[in-house]
């Protein structure tokens, strides 16, 4: 056989196959699948819940005929990429996970669609009463909904049952007890530390400091709603926050969420405050050295401060420039429905519904759901100001609080500089 023929036969076969594929009937809309054939793109934070997206999206595609392409990104990249998409009106993403703290900014700039019309139209099937009241803060701004609740996180205290029992220490119920326990449980010579914290420059340290501000009854806004980070109260809280770092691993001033999690799961840490979504992972022997040794309790507040618990997490929004808003809303309705929410949680998603948090089967698998329910009921979704200027506050605190932790600035200097930086960057 000549060389030409050897080449021609496979080429002809390929062409025939392509033609055959092209002759296949396209996915067409039908009364049962009105949006079949629509293609959606979803930008998602690469948190644990992304595993649930990966599991559920094929099921959604099968049921509706809508194709969903998932684009997973880290926190900083997601924010930057989405903002670029919004301001350039490119409509690259139809759907996006929206951090609770971005709500104000998205609403003010109308980056996402207000969902209220959709919600009113489909209220009969949405079972909105079942959604925990605090979860609405995942997308509500001034009476309208710019993202729909997707994954609710509570700030909880994780602790090593075995370590605390051995030291005869009860799980700390106040911030003062937490500091004392962290001190007592730190044995740096054995590479064992009382607490793991977020100290890395950027959103990590800023968000952890904000948790402590909330737990000590402080606020980043004054009574008129103006940004006021350098109050005497906040300076005192920052000093307390800095004290805790004396009982954290030496590298904690460079910890992002993943490194803090790794430190806790490695078994070298006695206590860690963090988002509840990570809890299930501690029981996975593939990634955890502390299987069966850890428990959660409500995050301790300072003595005399009314108990409120930091609430955060993610909503899901529709890009205001999306050409597929109806299909995108179908996806939101489906993924947040009570039936799918159970599967969502079983595949590393985080709950938003009372029915999920109280489901007998789920509670048997995740016994900490009872604590979580309590934390949600007393949850505070506004402890990080969900105002349009949030990213400016976060950037300033992210730089200056880190500078305080590494000894470049005093607590007062750090917050004074943060306040100055915020003022300079405000629109």
């Amino acid at each position: 056989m000549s060389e030409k023929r050897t080449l021609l036969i496979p080429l002809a076969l390929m062409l025939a196959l392509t033609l055959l594929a092209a002759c296949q009937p396209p996915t067409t809309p039908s009364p049962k699948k009105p949006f079949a054939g629509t293609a959606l793109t979803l930008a998602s934070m690469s948190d644990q819940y992304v595993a649930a997206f990966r599991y559920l999206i094929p099921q959604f595609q099968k049921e509706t005929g809508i194709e969903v392409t998932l684009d997973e990104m880290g926190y900083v990249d997601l924010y930057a990429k989405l903002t670029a998409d919004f301001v350039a009106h490119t409509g690259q993403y139809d759907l996006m996970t929206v951090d609770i703290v971005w709500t104000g900014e998205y609403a003010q700039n109308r980056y996402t669609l207000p969902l209220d019309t959709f919600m009113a139209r489909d209220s009969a099937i949405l079972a909105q009463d079942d959604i925990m009241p605090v979860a609405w803060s995942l997308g509500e701004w001034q009476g309208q909904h710019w993202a729909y609740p997707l994954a609710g996180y509570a700030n909880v205290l994780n602790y090593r049952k075995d370590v605390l029992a051995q030291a005869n220490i009860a799980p700390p119920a106040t911030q003062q007890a937490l500091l004392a326990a962290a001190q007592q449980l730190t044995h740096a010579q054995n590479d064992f530390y009382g607490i793991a914290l977020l100290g890395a420059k950027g959103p990590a340290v800023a968000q952890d400091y904000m948790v402590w501000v909330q737990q000590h009854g402080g606020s980043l806004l004054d009574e008129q709603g103006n940004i006021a980070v350098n109050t005497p109260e906040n300076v005192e809280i920052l000093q307390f926050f800095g004290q805790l770092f004396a009982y954290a691993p030496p590298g904690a001033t460079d910890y992002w969420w993943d490194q803090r999690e790794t430190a806790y799961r490695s078994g070298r840490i006695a206590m860690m405050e963090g988002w509840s979504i990570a809890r299930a992972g501690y029981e996975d022997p593939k990634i955890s050295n502390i299987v069966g040794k850890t428990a959660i309790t409500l995050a301790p507040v300072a003595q005399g401060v009314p108990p409120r618990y930091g609430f955060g997490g993610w909503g899901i929004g529709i890009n205001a420039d999306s050409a597929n808003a109806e299909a995108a809303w179908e996806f939101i309705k489906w993924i947040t429905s009570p039936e799918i929410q159970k599967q969502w949680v079983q595949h590393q998603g985080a709950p938003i519904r009372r029915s999920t948090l109280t489901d007998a089967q789920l509670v048997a698998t995740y016994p900490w759901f009872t604590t979580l329910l309590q934390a949600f009921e007393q949850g505070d979704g506004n402890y990080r100001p969900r105002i349009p200027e949030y990213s400016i506050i976060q950037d300033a605190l992210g730089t200056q609080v880190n500078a305080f932790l590494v000894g470049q600035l005093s607590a007062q200097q750090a917050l004074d500089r943060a306040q100055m930086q915020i003022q300079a960057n405000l629109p």
Partner: protein
Amino acid sequence: MKRTREKHYLLLLTPLLLLVLLLAIYPLLFALGISFFNYRLTDPTQTRHFVGLANYLRAFHSPLVHTAVINTLLFVAGTVSLELLLGLGMALLLNHENKLIQLIRSWLVLPMALPALVVGLIWKALYNVDFGPLTYYLKHLGLNLGRGPLGESHLALPAVMLIDVWQWTPLAMLIFLAGLKSLPQEPYDAARVDGANSWQQFWHLTLPLLKPTWLILLLLRTMQGFKVFDTLYATTGGGPGTATTVLNYHIYTQGMVFFRMGYAAALANILLVLVGMLAIFYIILLERQRQ
């Protein structure tokens, strides 16, 4: 006849010139233009307000910009001098031809082939004071690393400079090697006849003859040093505090985090002037050398 030919050449060059104008000159002019405006992309109306030189004045008075400029100059001075010295040393060591040296030379080029972001992430893991292998051994040698090379204010800048040196010294080595290979043999023969030893030959012949190579490398690495971003993005994010915030990183924060395009453009123009001045200085030196 000659004129017609020139006209033809010009005609043939026109598409390319237009492309350069479009891709290089227009963005520069656009950046210059918006630097005189308060232009925030996240403003829903995206209105541009003329503010004159306010963005430049703000930059000149900003303590963060002062810190960023100092950090940039330290970074450039430190990395360029180390890379040139080490590159020359390695080139002299590897300026022979045998199988082993050829193999070593090809392996040494590998760091350059890696994206700076990947290099940054690898070194971040190596430097991690709690889990990193490098710090594990250093601690066993009795060194007190405190919060780690990237966590201590006084260590962070040298630590990121070391990453740059690790990645880009091979480039200096390669260019020096090319320079060494092209040196004329006659002056060395004459020097040997006059009784010059190896050190004298190196000091009085090799170094002066390599001057054009030095200058080209200085120009290249200085310009690249001023533009460092990926390594810092992947390792320190400009921290701890502002210890590794260089001008380019600050521009990124203003432009891509706050989307303040006017102010970011003003900062970028300042960086452009800084780099441009140094580049012109080097080019003048290079031209003098040629003459």
